[in-house]
Every structure is written in C-alpha cells, then in structure tokens.
C-alpha cells in the first residue's frame, strides 16, 4: 500500500477537485429482455439509477440478478430494449467511442503473446498514441498497481493476483474518469483480495475517478463503496440503494466497527428480502 500512497499523481487530483460534482451515469426506466430459445428473459426491468462523479458504486446481488448485465449496458456491450441511459451526458455507444471508461473483466484476459508492458500498451496502440506517450503511461500505471519490474514478463509467468493487477493497469492506462469493474477479484483468494481492495481504494482516493464495481461479496461491497445498489433476480431489478456514511478514507480495520456492520446488515437484509420475494 505504501507504493501506491507514494505514487504521485497530483495533477489529476487537482483537476478533478476543482470541478463541481456532476452526473456521470443517468439511467431511467431501463429494461433489457434477451430473446432465447425458451422465450424472452427479463434480464433487467425498470432500472433507475444516478451515479455522480467521484462515487464508488457497487452492484451486489445473487447470480442471475443482472448486475453484470447492467454494467455491460453502461459499457455498451449490451443494448437495452427500453428506457434511456446516458454516460457522461452522451449515449453509451458514443461514450465507448470516446473511450470514456476503462473496463476490468472477471478474468485478466491478458494476451499471452504480449509482455505485461505490451498488454498495458494495447489500448494505447489502438488509440494511436505516440511511443513516448505510451511509454510514459505504461510506467505510470504499472507503478500505480505495484507491478514495476515485471514489464518484460509474460502473463503466464505471473500469479493470478498480479495478472489481475496488470489488467487494472491496462484499464487505467486509457486514463478514463470512469472505471467499470466486473467482479475483478472474484477468482482470487481472500488475502490477495483484501490487499487489492485496499490498493483500489487508495487509487480511487488519489485519482477521484468514478468507479462502478460488481461483486457478490457483502464485505467487499461495504468496504469499498460510497453507494451500494442491491439487485434481485427474476426479473433483474434494483431492490435497495444504500448511501454509505462511512468516511471516504478507510483501512481494513473499519470492517470491525459498528457502522460498517450496520451497513453490511442492511445489505444482507436487502439480499434476503430480494430472494424471498419469489417464494
């Protein structure tokens, strides 16, 4: 964590703090129905959600509740069938073409024929940045996720946690204001996960990015978020939105405090109620 804290990124922080908070994501009455061989499936139904700049929002819910689908709609990887959505004030497609967000997948999805540095450079090559600019962004973001020194390694020579950190560096290299993360630490063990959660929080505090984070872990959601969106399945819909009053600066110890447990309890109640709804 010290490596992250020591990484200087003051320029970005100052820029963001001087701007007034504004709406990054605005979703109204959004629905998505998949046509399958077994008939239509309501993946998302009547979603209303506002996300402000600098928020850390978690989507939590059981499997099949549509949390990943909702994130994919924001990223323009799925098209909604009804309702409206804007990202940075424009359509998700336009936002995607503007490279307005960085997306971190469940798996690292690094290309095995590229070194770690070359993997981080992948979006930069597509954006057509100069070699010098690419080099600068590679070293800056590799340092941010604590991977300096591993530039020349291939993905298969790294542990799962390091691979996922490299994929976060790759998303950050685009230097987006919005970071979309789909259960990025789901496949990692508890210890690595705690460590990466802490690093992610520091990164967020330092850069003031807006983060939308999908998880099915209650402690992870409560520890990271300023806002927790509880979803429930069949049809996928928002059951509860919890504004967390925990301080923005947190360490792992906060998980033992009554405030933390109170928020976690409300999330758990929401998940339980959302589930029992269909019985």
């Amino acid at each position, binding site marked *: 964590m010290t490596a992250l804290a020591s990484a200087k990124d003051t320029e970005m922080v100052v820029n963001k703090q001087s701007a007034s908070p504004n709406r990054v994501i605005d979703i109204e009455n959004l629905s998505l129905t998949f046509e399958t061989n077994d008939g239509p499936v309501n993946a998302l139904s009547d979603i209303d959600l506002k996300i402000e700049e600098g928020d850390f929002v978690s989507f939590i819910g059981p499997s099949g509740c549509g949390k990943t689908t909702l994130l994919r709609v924001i*990223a323009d990887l799925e098209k909604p069938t009804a309702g409206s959505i804007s990202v940075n004030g424009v359509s998700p497609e336009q936002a*995607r073409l503007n*490279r307005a967000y960085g*997306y971190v997948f469940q798996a690292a*999805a690094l*290309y095995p024929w590229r070194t770690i540095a070359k993997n981080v450079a992948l979006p930069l090559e*597509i*954006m057509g940045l100069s070699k010098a600019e690419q080099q600068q962004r590679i070293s800056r973001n590799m340092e941010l996720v604590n991977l300096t020194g591993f530039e020349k390694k291939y993905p*298969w020579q790294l542990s799962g946690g390091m691979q996922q950190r490299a994929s976060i560096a790759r998303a950050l290299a685009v230097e987006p204001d919005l970071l979309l993360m789909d259960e990025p630490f789901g496949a990692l063990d508890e210890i690595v996960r705690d460590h990466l959660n802490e690093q992610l929080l520091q990164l967020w505090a330092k850069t003031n990015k807006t983060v939308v984070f999908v998880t099915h872990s209650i402690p992870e959601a409560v520890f990271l978020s300023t806002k927790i969106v509880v979803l429930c399945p069949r049809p996928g819909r928002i059951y509860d939105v919890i504004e967390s009053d925990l301080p923005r600066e947190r360490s792992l110890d906060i998980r033992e405090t009554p405030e933390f447990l109170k928020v976690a309890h409300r999330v758990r109640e929401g998940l339980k109620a959302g589930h029992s709804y269909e019985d």
Partner: protein
Amino acid sequence: MSTMTEKKSRLDMPALLAWFIVAMVVVGLFSPIFGPDYGVMDVPRLALCLVILAIAGVRYELGFMRNPLGDIILGIVTAIAAWLLIATSSQHAGQATLGFWALVAATWAASWLFVERLATWRHLSPLATRLINLAIPALFGITLLALWQVIVTGAGIPKVLLPAPSEIWVRLTNSGPTLWADFRQTFLKAVLAGYAIGCGSAFITAILVDRVPFLRRGLLPIGNLVSALPIIGVAPIMVMWFGFDWPSKAAVVIIMTFFPMLVNTVSGLAASDAMQRDLMRTYASNYWQTLFKLRLPMAMPFIFNALKINSTLALIGAIVAEFFGTPIVGMGFRISTEVGRMNVDMVWAEIAVAALAGSLFYGLVALLERAVTFWHPSVRG
C-alpha cells in the same frame, strides 16, 4: 571391481537383451556362418568382437564394470562388429546361414542395449544431455540402415525387389546432377510456388470469408468440394490447361493445399473468446485493429497446423502430378521412368531425396511455429 552392494534378481529389458546376446553369440560361434564350411573363426576379428560384446553385455548381470566406460566399450565394439558383418556379407552375398543370422541378432541386440544404457546416464551437463537426446534417434536410424544392409546382402535379395542402402548411396553420389535437376524442377519450382500460392490465397480467402459473412455460406462448401477432387483425376486436366512444365504441377499443389489452409484459418479466426473480443470493443477498436492485435495472433496455432500438413501434401501432389506428363525432368517423372527400366536404385535415390526434402521443409515450418507461437501452452510447457 565387483562389490557386494546390491544383489537383486532382475529380469528387465537390459538383462533380457544381455542374455539374448550371449545365447546368440554361442550359436554363432559354433555353427557355420556362410555356406556349409565357413565358420566365424575364419574371420577372427569378428569372433573377438562378438565375444567382447557378450561379455560387455552381461557385465551388469555378473556385477563388474557397471559404469559409462563399459557402456562406451559396448557401443564401439557394436559398431565394429556391425561393420565387419557388413563387410564379410558383401563377400558372400546370398550365402548366409544360421550362424550369420545369430551374429546379426546379437549385434542388433547389442546396439539396442547400448541405447538403453545411454538413456540411463545421469548427472550430465545440459549440453551432454542434448547430445544424447540427438544421438538416440540417430543411432536408431543407423541401426535400421545397417540391418537393412546385412539382411539384403546376406539373404541375397534381388536388387529389383530391394536394393541395399550401399547401392542406393552409390547411386545418390553418382547421379548428383540428375537428382539436383529433378529436385529443382519438382521442389524448388512446383512445390514452393504451389505451396506459397495455395496457402497465401487460402489465407486471403479466409479473411474475405470472415469479413463478408455471405461468402462463408457460399465459398466454404465450394472449398470443401475442391478438396474432395481426386488428384489422380485433376492432374491430367491441369496438364492440359497449364502445359507440361512445372506450372501444371504447381496448380495441383494449389488445389491440394488450399482447403486445409482455408478451413484452419477460418476456425483460427474464430478462436478468440468473447471476453477478449469485448475487451477490444471497450477500446473502440476497429475491425482491422482487432484482426491484427487479437484474432490473427490467436489463429496462429491453427494456421501453422495447416502449414505443416500442407508441407508434406505439397510434395506428394507435385510428384504424383508428374506421372501425367512432364518435360524429361522431375522427381515424379524420374520415379515413373526408372521403375519401367528396372533401375530401382534410382527410384530409391529419388525417394531418399524426397524424404529428406519433405522432412527439412516440415522441420523449418515447425521451427518457425515455435518462434511465432512461443506463448501457446503446447509450446511454452
């Protein structure tokens, strides 16, 4: 020299081989090797070698000289014995009797035993390990050639049925210019041109099929049909279309190599998974960027599969196509005419050249594959 360390009863492969050598040497020493009255004692050096082989073979079983030095003696004496067998059999072609075959069997078993011993050497430097890994297949090949030689000369097999390797070698060295001209005509012109055009056009077609979906439905079945054409039927037509010289053979090679390359490239281009394609989408990557940065690298193992299959198919196609009309040069032309003239050693010389060229071609493609797909689990292992 012999210590009382281990006295376990063993009946593994080396032990079996060792006792087999002893038995065969005993048979060989006490029965004639050529005709009714020519024994191994008429060739004292051979008799000495075989006695040494028998002793060196069973030394592990009897418990002395259990070290690499003994193994090396075994190997060297085996080579000398094989050489003496070849030399004496050439003076008595077709007269071999029971004793001779027993000695051949003993020498063959000794070379097998030597390879078994070689494979158990430990505590070696990486370089020595690599040398031994090269030596084992080489020894295997040499043993096969030596066996071929002694059996053909010892049993007096007619040259028309199967010439000895030495006769093929003589023909190879004496007919250098002819073989080179044939090689140039068939391999350097027809095979390489056909291979490059066939694989290249199939690759471009695969990209087209991928880019324009309706072509997939139209072109793939036609490609399938073309690949099913019998080359025996197509070759004469190609000769009528493109003349007697190498272009008609290149055309046959194109037809043979096109489809494997097309099918493999098309499935290779589909090999990337949904998450990798979504990733490129989040970067607003266009078709060509996704093609070059994700899908083609991902397709490389498939493409190299096709290139390897085609490297041997191309040679077969070109040689067979020459049976249907050529100028008076080419490997296929030479094989078909020399068979008619009963010059079977020339046919075998051409086969040797074709085998060598095909293996080298395949090996080169495989080396290139290792360099390009170094990241693939099957290579990086």
